[in-house]
């Protein structure tokens, strides 16, 4: 240990060194504000696009929650034997996936149908009741997989019956949502990779400008870690700026697309409000920017310092 340096000075000296690196990095950014702002803007655009798509997807998924009725399963018991019907009743009573069920007798159904006709005499032409007995089942949950499993179980209990459920469109919507998420992950990953390379290039060119300082510092015994410290702080600053800018762009984008989207939804008889992303999501955007900025600076400085004299 050098004279004048005590062990208890180590941590404060380290903190001072970091503060100096951050300050110098900020000064350099303020000296070339246009270039710094361009880096921040590029990162902001790249982050805002997948975030915007994600918000749209998330809201589209909420559509399935807006369904005004629970999914139902109808069993048409045409020519099913009485013993099988008893089995079915036992199953419906014991299966936890069943919320409630109603038996609609064929004669009762015909009578109701007759009441709805303008000329009830028309049905007298029929030799026998064409309607089957129907069991209308309301599942305990709207979860598509559970409903599908219940439907399979009921069909197996009553082999001759026609089983129909009305949750097909929920399943279709869900699979579309899954597909959307997958596409979004790919697009997000590609954009993130692009951002990383742009930030690495920016860091490398900044280090080229500091070449003389780096050469002198190397001669004076500076380590890699010391030399890249200002660049890492610079990357974090750009990343933070990019994250904030992306958040602003996202809020503006949602604000602008809210009215047309609601109009379009109304045309399809759907009630859809575009909800703003919460604080957690905006924070995640900020962290994504920060991480990209830091990683890009690390990548660029590692490369540039390896090649520097």
């Amino acid at each position, binding site marked *: 240990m*050098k004279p*004048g*340096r005590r062990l208890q*000075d*180590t941590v*404060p*000296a*380290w903190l*001072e*060194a970091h503060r*100096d690196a951050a300050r110098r990095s900020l000064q350099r950014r303020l000296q070339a504000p246009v270039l710094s702002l361009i880096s921040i803007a590029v990162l902001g655009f790249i982050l805002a696009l997948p975030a915007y798509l994600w918000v749209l997807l998330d809201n589209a998924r909420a559509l399935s929650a807006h369904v005004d009725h629970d999914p139902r399963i109808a069993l048409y018991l045409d020519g099913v034997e009485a013993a099988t019907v008893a089995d079915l009743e036992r199953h419906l009573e014991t299966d936890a996936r069943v919320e409630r069920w109603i038996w609609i007798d064929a004669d009762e159904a015909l009578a109701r149908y007759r009441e709805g006709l303008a000329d009830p005499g028309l049905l007298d032409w029929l030799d026998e009741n064409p309607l089957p007995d129907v069991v209308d089942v309301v599942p305990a949950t709207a979860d598509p997989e559970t409903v599908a499993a219940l439907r399979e179980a009921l069909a197996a209990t009553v082999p001759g019956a026609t089983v129909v459920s009305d949750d097909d469109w929920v399943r279709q919507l869900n699979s579309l949502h899954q597909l959307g998420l997958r596409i979004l992950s790919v697009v997000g990953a590609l954009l993130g990779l692009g951002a990383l390379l742009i930030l690495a290039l920016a860091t490398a060119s900044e280090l080229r400008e500091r070449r*003389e*300082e780096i*050469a*002198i*510092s*190397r*001669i*004076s*015994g*500076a*380590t890699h870690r*010391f030399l890249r410290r200002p660049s890492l702080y610079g990357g974090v600053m750009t990343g933070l700026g990019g994250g904030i800018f992306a958040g602003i762009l996202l809020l503006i984008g949602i604000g602008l697309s809210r009215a047309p989207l609601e109009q379009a939804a109304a045309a399809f008889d759907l009630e859809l409000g575009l909800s703003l992303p919460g604080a957690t999501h905006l924070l995640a955007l900020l962290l994504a920017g920060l991480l990209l900025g830091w990683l890009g600076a690390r990548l660029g400085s590692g490369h540039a310092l390896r090649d520097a004299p």
Partner: protein
Amino acid sequence: MIRLQRVTKRFGSASEALSNVSLRVDPGAMAFITGPSGAGKSTLLRLIAGLERPTRGRIRVNGHDLDRLSNRAIPGFRRSIGLVFQDHRLLFDRPVFDNVALPLEILAYRRPEMRKRVRAALDKVGLLHKEGVNPRTLSAGEQQRVGIARAIVHRPVLLLADEPTGNLDPALSREILQLFDDFNRVGMTALIASHDLGLVERMGKPVLHLEDGRIEARAAAGAPA
């Protein structure tokens, strides 16, 4: 302090910049290397500072075998030496104080201690009143003195200077060499390259003459001037 054994340095396929050079500089000594430009003076200093690796031969400086020093150990080794260049190599994006403070920043000195040492070094070279100015506004002699302050601020055990008086008039040159002599008197080993034979001989220190990458003659350790 410095020991070279049959050191050869070749750059690419070009002819040898240094051929079979052997020399020894004891701790606390001061010596000069002279010779025309292109004789290999700068190459010799760069090898001793660990800025280049020898093609052949062994170099031992301040207890380190430079030919066996790992890349990771090089920064630590360089912190024990001070380097002065003919073109000063000052940073014009910051004031004199920050230029001189650079080696202390690398050594992670705390502010008060750093301030004390930088001001002491600037005082030694007579530029304390210029600590806040940009080095661009200084004269060539003043810039060189800032470079010297930066080289000695961390109190290195070895001071290497490559043509430190190259751009200066005779009076200023003598002043600069006198500074090196002062540092040497307080225990700093010094090795100075210069093409100005007349000036060097007046210092009365050992002189190594390089010619085409070979040591031509070795002056006996002269009596102090």
